[in-house]
């Protein structure tokens, strides 16, 4: 019977351990609550967006100090879970007042009746002070469904040392320049695959494709919603991608890479060029624990074909919206106006670049060492190109991802792949 005694003690021990951790935990969770507030909002954010959880908590605390009658409970989830959370809450009929949304969602959420139309509440004066491309983040069919919050786009990053070694004096001005410079770098044996992309079969590959479509001056649909991407700029973009793989200038690992893999490959001197988001600049250029290329990173707006388009830039921003089910839309609006205000955005500008044009006019306010990035941002933000705003965006993107990968894997020619994609997109639309 000895083991039974032991069993008893081990269970007891486990209970004590959990009891201690439980007691330790409950203390803090109650202290955060504000019970006397007449209006209580709940908001859903993303953990570690450009702003960290703590930053958002600090901003919110400031807001609550200014508005003692509004209390806000915050929830933070990972980006992957953000969409699913909003959907699950909406499907169950209630949920959050304020939600963080990605640029590709307003069409879907507006059609589904999740988001509140706040067109009337946004002053005209504010609209003019913000990059118009930023507003596209929250626009659907000329109605405003929120306020843009975290502006982002994909830039062309390059390794200055490698370009110098290859005898290249200036970074590429056009997409063909990019391919040519990559060939020079490859032929000189400086790096095996000069360009790394994020072409994983997910939103990544479609995003990279959209940048190139923008660069080649293509568009996705005509005014009647018929596909256009299987000819012109849309076709050129995919041909460019496939050709760069064939020439060996693009890393074949791109096909399963996400943005993070790009950062790692670029940061370990295994690529001369990478197309990536804002965050990469400071990590690759300053964080010596993650990067071997500190101080060697150049950033430029992604170039276009040089004929019709000089700068290619995709809108990867986020926005703050108010739900249809919110019982306190007025207070919710006040809250999101505060978070997106120019003073708050300027205060946290080293984490996420403001959407207010005025910020870019006064370099004295810029954080140290950010000049190249802010210069590139100013040019790119003025030219933000949007992914198609479709209520059934996810279906569309899923189809595109599949066929883009088929072309990249040489299962289909670029033309066949895009034709097939166009056909399936039309079918799916009929299917609803």
């Amino acid at each position, binding site marked *: 019977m000895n*083991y039974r005694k032991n069993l008893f003690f081990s269970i007891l021990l486990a209970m004590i351990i959990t009891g201690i951790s439980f007691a330790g935990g409950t203390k803090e969770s109650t202290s955060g609550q504000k019970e006397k507030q007449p209006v209580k909002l709940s908001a859903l954010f993303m*953990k570690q967006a450009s702003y960290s959880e703590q930053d958002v908590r600090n901003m919110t605390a400031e807001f609550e100090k200014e508005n003692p009658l509004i209390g806000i409970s915050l*929830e933070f989830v990972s980006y992957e879970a953000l969409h*699913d959370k909003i959907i699950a809450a909406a499907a169950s009929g209630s949920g959050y007042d304020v939600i963080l949304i990605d640029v590709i969602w307003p069409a879907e959420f507006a059609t589904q009746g999740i988001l509140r139309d706040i067109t009337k509440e946004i002053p005209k004066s504010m609209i003019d002070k913000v990059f118009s491309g930023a507003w596209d983040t929250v626009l659907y069919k000329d109605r405003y469904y929120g306020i843009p919050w975290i502006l982002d786009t994909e830039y062309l990053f390059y390794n200055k040392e490698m370009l110098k070694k290859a005898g290249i004096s200036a970074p590429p001005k056009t997409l063909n320049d990019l391919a040519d410079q990559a060939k020079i770098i490859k032929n000189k044996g400086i790096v095996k695959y000069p360009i790394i992309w994020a072409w994983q079969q997910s939103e990544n590959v479609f995003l990279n494709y959209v940048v190139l479509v923008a660069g080649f001056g293509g568009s996705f649909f005509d005014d009647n919603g018929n596909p256009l991407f299987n000819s012109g700029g849309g076709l050129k973009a995919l041909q460019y991608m496939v050709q760069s793989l064939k020439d060996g200038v693009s890393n074949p690992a791109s096909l399963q890479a996400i943005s993070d893999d790009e950062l790692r490959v670029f940061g370990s001197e295994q690529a001369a060029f990478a197309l990536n988001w804002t965050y*990469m600049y400071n990590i690759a250029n300053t964080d010596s*624990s993650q*990067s071997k290329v500190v101080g060697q990173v150049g950033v430029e707006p992604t170039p276009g074909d040089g004929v019709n388009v000089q700068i290619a830039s995709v809108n990867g921003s986020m926005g703050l919206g108010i739900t249809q089910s919110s019982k306190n839309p007025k207070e919710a609006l006040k809250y999101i106006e505060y978070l997106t205000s120019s003073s708050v955005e300027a205060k946290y500008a080293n984490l996420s670049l403001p959407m207010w044009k005025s910020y870019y006019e006064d370099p004295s306010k810029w954080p140290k060492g950010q000049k190249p990035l802010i210069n590139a941002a100013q040019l790119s933000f003025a030219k933000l190109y949007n992914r198609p705003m479709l209520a059934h965006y996810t279906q569309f993107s899923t189809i595109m991802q599949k066929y883009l990968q088929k072309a990249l894997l040489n299962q289909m020619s670029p033309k066949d792949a895009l034709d097939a994609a166009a056909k399936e997109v039309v079918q799916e639309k009929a299917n609803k």
Partner: protein
Amino acid sequence: MRRSSYYRHKILKLIFIYFFVILLIASIIAPFFWLIVSSLASLKDLVAKPLHWIPRHLNLERYREIFLGQIGISFRYALRNSILVALLSTSVSFVLSLLAAYSLSRFPGKYRSNILYVMLATYMMPPVAILLSLYIMLRQIHLVNTIWGLSIVYCSFLTPFLTWILKGFIDTIPKEIEEAATIDGANRILILLRIVIPVAIPGIIAAVLLGVLMSWDEFFYALIFTSTNKAITLPVAIAQFTKRHSIDYGMMAAGGVVAALPPIILAVLLQRYLIQGLTSGSVKG
């Protein structure tokens, strides 16, 4: 002559056994070793080519962050939540399923065992499909984002499973052992406690481990049903180490190492019972 061949046979067998034991240990340790290295090394060293197996700069910074730092706050809550959910759901399902398994095993009706398979049906559904129905149910009883709600959901698939596992083990126990006790006039509960459980200890331990680990690892329900420090579990907290465009691989590795510890500690505590059971001679009596 015969004797030497006997020894040779025995030595061969020993070599055979140790060969495979070493192979087994290596196959387990190698990826885990890399996980630990990843949790200690800087990301720069991890992506180096050629790769150094023991990077020059190792530090415990990430563990400090997890146990004391700002980013680790959610993780620490999640550790508590996960322990509670695993204990709660496993213990409730265990008691229910032990009783159910015993009765199913000892009074087998023609269709009764089929009930089990029907009960398993929900576990067979992709979680995504039934997620929303469950979410709405939990919402109605105000258990969204609580460890209670999550535990109930886990019980719903653990109970049928544990019942089934335990029934399998109890089936293998010869009925004769109990019959003697029945003649002595002991009632069913007593027989279960005094005779069946001691004999079935290895099976029970396996079932408990299985229950704990199933709820320990469950991801999708937890992801949707919980969202604040009050209730998130470890897999959710670890998944939150990913950022919008980048993955904090080092933190995830450190989180994984820490998350693997409680089940291992439990396994160490239960280890001896797994070996005991019949070998300890409880059948002799």
